[in-house]
């Protein structure tokens, strides 16, 4: 995570969001299953998924949302708040695969930016393979640490 973050005045349409890359090993998926209380065997049981004729345990699709929020917050810092986020699933992702999240600023307002993003699977040579999620979009409030529903801290 960066020690300094851009302020709203320095952000323009067309700016690229620093990419986020993450490999989800089976052990990471077990940790995610525990953290979300989602113990469906699709996410860690290799014998079960083999019976289903899948190439491996399936990465939970909600992971994409967590990664996209992380990418935006890592870029914009603690004085930002992801107000909306949406994405469409395109392809399954399996244990051991590496995801790359990327984005571009498509709008700048008085207190927010609009970002268009994608999540893709990387091939072994590092090139972009199939799309995991797209289109993805977010509205990020900049210059505040919390959302419009927040009350003043006690």
């Amino acid at each position, binding site marked *: 995570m960066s020690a300094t973050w851009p302020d709203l005045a320095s952000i323009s349409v067309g700016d690229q969001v620093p990419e986020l890359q993450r490999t989800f090993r089976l052990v*990471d998926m077990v*940790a995610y299953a525990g953290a979300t209380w989602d113990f469906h065997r699709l996410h860690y049981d290799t014998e079960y998924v083999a019976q289903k004729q899948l190439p491996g345990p399936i990465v939970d699709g909600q992971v994409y949302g967590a990664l996209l*929020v992380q990418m935006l917050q890592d870029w914009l810092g603690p004085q930002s708040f992801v107000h909306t*986020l949406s994405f469409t699933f395109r392809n399954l992702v399996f244990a051991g695969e590496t995801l790359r999240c990327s984005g571009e600023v498509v709008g700048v307002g008085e207190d927010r930016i609009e970002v268009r993003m994608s999540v893709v699977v990387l091939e072994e040579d590092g090139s972009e393979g199939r799309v995991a999620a797209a289109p993805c979009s977010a509205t990020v409030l900049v210059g505040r*640490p919390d*959302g*419009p*529903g927040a009350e003043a*801290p006690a």
Partner: protein
Amino acid sequence: MTGSLLTEEVLALRGRTVTYTAPEPFGAVAGRYFGMAVGDDNPLYSDAEYAREQGLAGVTAPLTLICETNQYAGLPMDEEGYPGHTWGLDLPGTRQVRGGNSYTFHRRIRPDDRVVATWTIDDVAAKTTGSGKEMLVITSTARFATVEGEPLAENSETIIFVSLEGSQR
């Protein structure tokens, strides 16, 4: 399009609502654990002093964790290990795929928040895939609030049941 997936039973799903209330406050460890699981070491999830310096009341959790309903549902695991909310739909001759998610976050969750999750089916619709197969599109929204009624987040998602039968055109 025959509309054979859009049965009376399926149409009756419109407007169905289920509410789950967490039995205890969210806690601080849940956010720290989730951050570790996704490789997000943002100190907002682990360092209360840092979080207060940023204007928060204390540590929080990664935003999407609010929308993981399993932790509130208190449901038993099914045969496949899933202990969370479903609509109990079993449509023979179809395969189920997830369409996508659309989140709105109102504020960051706090460890002392006790969450109420309310799921509602917004719509069910029969459509046709590009290859001519019938599919059933179910759109639902989960609204997350504190037990005091403060809105935290909404999550609209789409589940699609695609007929395994061949093209109808």
